[in-house]
C-alpha cells in the first residue's frame, strides 16, 4: 500500500497474510472460507500445501517469530482444505480474478480475526472505500505492518480510457470488464501495489464493512492517471455462495 497508514490492531480483522509462491493477501468471509485473487494462486503447481495463510496479527513478523512455550499467542498458518479458482479465470487475463480458499477447520472469531461481509448481488459501489495490505510501500519495501488507504472509486469510463491509453505503451494489458472497478487518485500517490493482491477493498454501509473488491491488478503503482483495478465482488456473490454451499 502506497501512501497509506499503518493499521491499528484489530482494525482490519478480515485481513489475511497469504503466501502462495509470493506475498499476497486474502480476506476472511466465513469460518472456513477465505476470498482472494485467482492470480495469487497462479504459481501453485501441485496442491494447497504450498499455500500458507495467516490471520490475527497486523505484523507479518509475528507470524514467523520463533516462539517460546510461554508466549501467549502463537500464530500458525491456517490448515487449507481446498482451492476453488473461478472457472472463468484464464491467466494472464485478470477477468474473473477471484478464488476461494476453504480451510480444513473453522476459525474462532475474535477482535483480531473477524469476517468481512459480502455485498448484495445488486449493490452499487459507494464513492470510496478502504483497502489494506502487506504489499510494498511507497519506499518499495515490503511492509511488515499492515497498511491501508482510503481511495475513491473511479468512474468506469475514466478508468477504461486510462487503461486504453496505457495499452499504447504496455503490451498484453487486460481489458477492463464489468467484473472490475477502479479506485485511486488521478494525481497518484495512494495506491495498492505488489503484495497487496487478494486483499479486500471494503466499503461501509450502516456501520458495517463489506468487501466490495479484491486487489487485482494495475500498471505501476501510485502513478498519476493510473488507477488500481479491483475484482468487483458483487458480481460473484452467487458463485461464492454456490461454491461454499457445494463444498
Amino acid at each position, binding site marked *: 500500500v502506497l501512501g497509506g497508514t499503518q493499521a491499528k490492531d484489530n482494525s*482490519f480483522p*478480515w485481513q489475511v497474510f497469504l503466501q502462495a509462491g509470493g506475498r499476497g493477501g486474502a480476506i476472511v468471509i466465513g469460518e472456513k472460507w477465505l476470498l482472494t485473487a485467482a492470480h495469487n494462486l497462479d504459481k501453485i503447481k501441485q496442491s494447497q500445501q504450498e499455500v500458507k495463510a495467516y490471520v490475527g496479527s497486523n505484523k507479518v513478523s509475528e507470524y514467523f517469530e520463533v516462539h517460546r512455550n510461554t508466549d501467549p499467542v502463537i500464530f500458525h498458518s491456517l490448515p487449507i482444505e481446498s482451492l476453488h479458482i473461478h472457472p472463468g479465470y484464464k491467466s494472464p487475463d485478470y477477468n474473473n480474478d477471484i478464488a476461494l480458499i476453504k480451510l480444513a477447520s473453522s476459525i*474462532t472469531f*475474535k477482535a483480531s480475526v473477524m*469476517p468481512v461481509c459480502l455485498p448484495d448481488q445488486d449493490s452499487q459501489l459507494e464513492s470510496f472505500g*478502504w483497502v489494506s495490505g502487506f504489499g510494498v510501500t511507497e519506499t518499495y519495501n515490503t511492509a511488515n505492518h499492515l497498511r491501508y488507504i482510503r481511495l475513491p472509486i473511479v468512474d468506469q469510463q475514466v478508468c477504461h480510457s486510462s487503461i486504453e491509453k496505457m495499452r499504447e505503451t504496455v503490451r498484453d494489458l487486460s481489458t477492463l470488464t464489468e467484473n472490475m472497478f477502479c479506485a485511486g487518485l488521478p494525481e497518484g500517490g495512494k495506491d495498492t501495489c505488489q503484495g497487496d493482491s487478494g486483499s479486500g477493498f471494503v466499503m461501509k454501509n450502516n456501520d458495517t*464493512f463489506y468487501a466490495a473488491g479484491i486487489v487485482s491488478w494495475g500498471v505501476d503503482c501510485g502513478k498519476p492517471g493510473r488507477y488500481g483495478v479491483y475484482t468487483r465482488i458483487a458480481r460473484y456473490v452467487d458463485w461464492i455462495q454456490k461454491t461454499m454451499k457445494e463444498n
Partner: protein
Amino acid sequence: CVCVSVCKTVMYGQVQSPLYPKPYPTNVHQQWDLEVPRGYQLQITFNYLDIEPSLNCYYDSLTVLHGKKVLGKFCGKNSWDPHHPGNKPIVSPSNRLQLVFVTDESNTEKYLGFSAFYQAVDIDECSTPDLNDSELRCSQICLNTLGSYLCTCSHGYQLQADQHTCVLDCSGGVFTEPEGVLSSPGFPDAPPPGVNCLYKVSVQPGFHITLNFSENFHIEQIDVQGPSCLFHWLQVSVPGEAPKKLCGNKSPGIIHTGSHTVDLEFHTDGHGQSGGFSLRYTTQRVECKIEGGIRNGRITPNFPKYSYRDYIQVRCDTGYKLMMGEKEIQSYKSMCQENGAWHLPLPECRIIDCGEPEALLNGEFKFLSGSKNEYRSVVQYHCNEPFYSFTKTKQVNLTCDADRTWKGEENEIPYCFPVCGRPVVDIAGLGR
C-alpha cells in the same frame, strides 16, 4: 357241714334242698350264691317248700338274702303259713341272691325241704332312676334292652361321649355366603344348658369378615378377681391371632376380623344363665392401600380406595416418567391381590431429565430457572459477542420439554453466526 355252691351266670336254674324229694337231713347249713348276668334281676319262685315250722323259723329255715339284707326267712308247708313264701316270686334288687338253708339236730317229722326255680328277669332301667346318683339314666330318650338300656337323643341333639347326655347339635355350620346372620340356639330365648356350638364363617380369600353383634347380648360373666368368661363364653378365633373370649351383658358391637375365616365357639355349661347372642356378619373386599397416592401422577380409575380385584393404571403428569425402582417403564397396570398388596409394586413418577444442554459453539448457556436439566428448566444461550450473534435475538431460551428435548420458539438448536464487518476498531477516523 357248710356247703358253698357258686353257680355260673346262667339265665335260669333250679335249687333244691339236700336229698330232695326225700326228707332233708339234720344239721344242714348250706348256702347257694345265685347269679344271673348283669343287667338282669334274679327272680326266684318256690314251687315246693316243706320245712319244719317253728316260731320265726327258729329250728329249720331257708333264708333268702341280698347281700346282708334278708328278703325272707321261710319254713312251714302251707301257703297260708305266714312264713311260707307261697307261689309268689321273690325278685332280687340285683342279679344276685343268696339262699341259706339251716336245719337243727333233730327233726320231729320228715320234712322234704324245698325246690325252687330261679331265672333272670330283665330290668327296665328306663323306668327307674340310677341308684348311684338318682338322676335319670338318659338326659332325653331311654330305650330298654334285654340286660341293659340305651340312651338316644331327639332330632337336633347329639349324644355325648358319656352315652347319657344329649347336647344340642349346633355345630358344623359353615357360613360361606358373603353375608349372613348367626345366633345362639333358640335366640332370642336362652340357649339350653350345656351347649357347645361351633360356627365357622369362611368366605373366599380376598374378603375380610366383619362381625356386627346385636345389642341383645348376654353371656354369663363371673366376677372372680375381675370379670372372666369362666363357664359361658363366645370365643372368637381368627387365624394368626390369640382367641378372644366374649361374655357379659354389653354387646361387643362391631369386630373387624381382618380375616376371611373366623371360628366362633359358643359354650355354656350345665348351669347358669346366658341369654345368648346374635350377629350379622358382612364381608368387605380386602383393601390395597396407596400410601400418599402417586406424586406427580394419576391413578385410573380414581376411587377413594381400592379393593381386591381392582385394576389400576398409573400415568405420570406431563414432564414426569414412570419409574419402577431405577428402571423406567412405559406403562403400569396392577391388580389388588387377596393379601392386600398390589401384584406389582407401585411405581413413582420422576421428573424427566433433558440431559445436559448442548454446548453452543462460539456461545455459552446458563440456567435461568428450575433445577438443572429437569422438565421446564430454562436454559439461556447467548453468543460470544460481538463476534457472534443469533440472527434475530440476542439470546435464545430453551425449555426442557416433555419429550425430553430442549426446545425453543424456533424449535431447533440455536447457531451462533459470525458477525461480519464490524471490527472493534473503527478505521474511518475523523481526520480530513
